[in-house]
């Protein structure tokens, strides 16, 4: 009778296994469009003969196999991480591009142009009070344009800092979700496709925020390393990160905004480990590009260098000149003032000397020989002097070089973001194609695709060369 029970038990187990296989298929159909879901396949394993309980070799044990391909998932995460960075750069650089607009209507180039025109006009009649007033009025416009630009840059700096804080909060939130999922996975007796899909979806979201490395433990839990080094989630343990002001970064540069550091849960600086994802884009703009423009950390900032260069050059000419072209000579008064105690705040404090009058503007170069409008002429030609007064460049040229830095960064971000969207689609498509296939088939697909792209890449290089030749052939 023992044998009969064994046979019935075996048949019952077989039916249960087949029923579960149908459930797996049903799951695959239902979740076909669920984010992060990977198909599962039922695997039937014959059970060994058990001499004590009787015949059982006809029974089957059913195990569910995930068709998830670890490297395919990693490839998608890496591409999402790069896409996150370039898209973030696109977003953050767009308002900067508006500030550094080189068109004639842009505040700083327009005000500079007006100032040098007013110097030129004044040089034709140095004692003309209207022309003297025009110079002071144009100088006020220049100061106002610098102040306005400094305010805009400081606002962008503040909003980038705020974006870093909120991105770090999102990273910690995703990490907490992964921690919660790990707890559920540990308590789940069998692999759960739903939990696995939620995990994958969260990991993809996290990838777009920062570069992560994902490790799967034998108990099914997921460990997430930030930058491949800092454990953000280890099983059921969460190690939250934080964004802090790096006070030491601006020592010796009073008034400059400190850089932002990303610290792990022990307070160690891990900023250098964040190399892609939206957080990397934000930190790069906040700690590198913005300080190079408005100052921060140890940098004075290009806008402040320009403001100081302009003020010093103009003041120097006026203070060495005379308001009269005959003795006794009266030295002129400085036109611009700024707070020299805070080098990174010069653009924001640039102003026209309080109470200055047209009569205090010195147009005469006392020589010898004395030239009645010599100083005014020098001022009129200051922007086009060679070498220029700001690091060898003229003021307008220097502003253009700042604008070019921002423009190139934005252009590069746009190009990379567009290309990266294609690469994410590529990785996701490959993820689907290699799902459940053998390692050999996977390799064949990858090699085929790589050789096709290699062929395309060679033609693109030739096309690029031809386009460069064409540009050189067509005069502007």
């Amino acid at each position, binding site marked *: 009778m023992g044998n009969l029970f064994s046979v019935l038990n075996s048949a019952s187990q077989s039916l249960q296994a087949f029923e579960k296989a149908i459930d797996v298929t049903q799951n695959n159909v239902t979740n076909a469009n669920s984010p992060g879901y990977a198909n599962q396949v039922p695997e039937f394993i014959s059970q060994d003969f058990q001499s004590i309980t009787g015949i059982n070799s006809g029974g089957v044990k059913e195990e569910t196999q995930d068709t998830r391909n670890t490297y395919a998932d*990693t490839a998608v995460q890496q591409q999402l991480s790069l896409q996150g960075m370039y898209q973030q750069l696109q977003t953050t650089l767009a308002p900067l591009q508006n500030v550094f607009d080189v068109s004639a209507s842009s505040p700083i180039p327009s005000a500079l142009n007006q100032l040098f025109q007013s110097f030129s006009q004044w040089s034709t009649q140095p004692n003309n009070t209207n022309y003297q007033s025009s110079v002071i009025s144009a100088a006020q416009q220049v100061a106002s344009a610098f102040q306005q630009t400094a305010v805009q840059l400081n606002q962008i700096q503040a909003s980038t800092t705020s974006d870093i804080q909120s991105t770090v909060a999102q990273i910690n939130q995703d990490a907490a979700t992964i921690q919660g999922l790990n707890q559920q996975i540990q308590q789940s007796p069998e692999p759960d496709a739903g939990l696995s899909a939620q995990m994958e979806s969260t990991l993809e979201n996290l990838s777009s925020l920062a570069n992560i490395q994902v490790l799967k433990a034998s108990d099914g839990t997921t460990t997430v390393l930030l930058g491949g080094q800092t454990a953000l989630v280890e099983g059921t343990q969460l190690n939250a990160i934080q964004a802090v002001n790096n006070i030491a970064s601006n020592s010796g540069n009073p008034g400059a905004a400190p850089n932002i550091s990303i610290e792990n849960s022990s307070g160690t600086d891990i900023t250098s480990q964040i190399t892609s994802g939206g957080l990397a884009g934000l930190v790069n703009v906040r700690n590198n590009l913005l300080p190079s423009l408005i100052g921060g950390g140890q940098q004075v900032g290009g806008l402040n260098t320009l403001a100081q260069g302009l003020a010093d050059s103009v003041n120097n000419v006026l203070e060495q000149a005379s308001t009269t072209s005959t003795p006794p000579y009266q030295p002129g008064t400085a036109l611009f003032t700024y707070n020299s105690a805070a080098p990174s705040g010069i653009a924001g404090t640039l102003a026209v000397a309080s109470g200055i009058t047209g009569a205090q503007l010195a147009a005469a170069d006392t020589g010898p020989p004395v030239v009645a409008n010599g100083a005014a002429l020098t001022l009129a030609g200051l922007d086009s002097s060679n070498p220029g007064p700001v690091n060898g460049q003229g003021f307008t040229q220097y502003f253009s070089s700042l604008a070019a830095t921002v423009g190139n960064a934005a252009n590069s971000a746009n*190009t990379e973001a567009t290309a990266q969207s294609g690469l994410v689609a590529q990785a996701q498509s490959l993820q689907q194609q290699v799902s459940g296939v053998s390692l050999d088939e996977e390799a*064949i697909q990858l090699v085929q695709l790589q050789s096709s792209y290699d062929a395309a890449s060679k033609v*693109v290089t030739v096309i690029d060369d031809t386009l460069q030749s064409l*540009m050189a052939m067509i005069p*502007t």
Partner: protein
Amino acid sequence: MENATQYGDARECLQAARTGMRQVKRLLSQPSFEAADESAALLRDVEVQLGCVAAILRQNGSRPDGEIRAGVEELQGEVAVLAAFLAGADKMLSGWLDAVRTRRGGYTERGQAAPLMLVRKLSVEG
């Protein structure tokens, strides 16, 4: 008059090149081996069309032409995106293949991924 006609031909060639590039972009937005192969063929056609533009301009001497210049600039932007895409794809596929190679054959003595051997094994017995 002849010069103007030939410049018109250059514009037509450029237009054909731009159309080809648009097709490449469309193809690569739906990644597959067939699409990648077709893109390479289309790119060779783009290269030929641009060669025609260069030949016509060389034959007729250079002169300012805003339309052609704008078209070439637009193509340069698209080529930059395509070059970034292909460079990124190569990096991704190389890394992926390395992972497959190590999973398939382990590592060489120098610590690199083992070469991929995709030859079918044949066993003959008896």
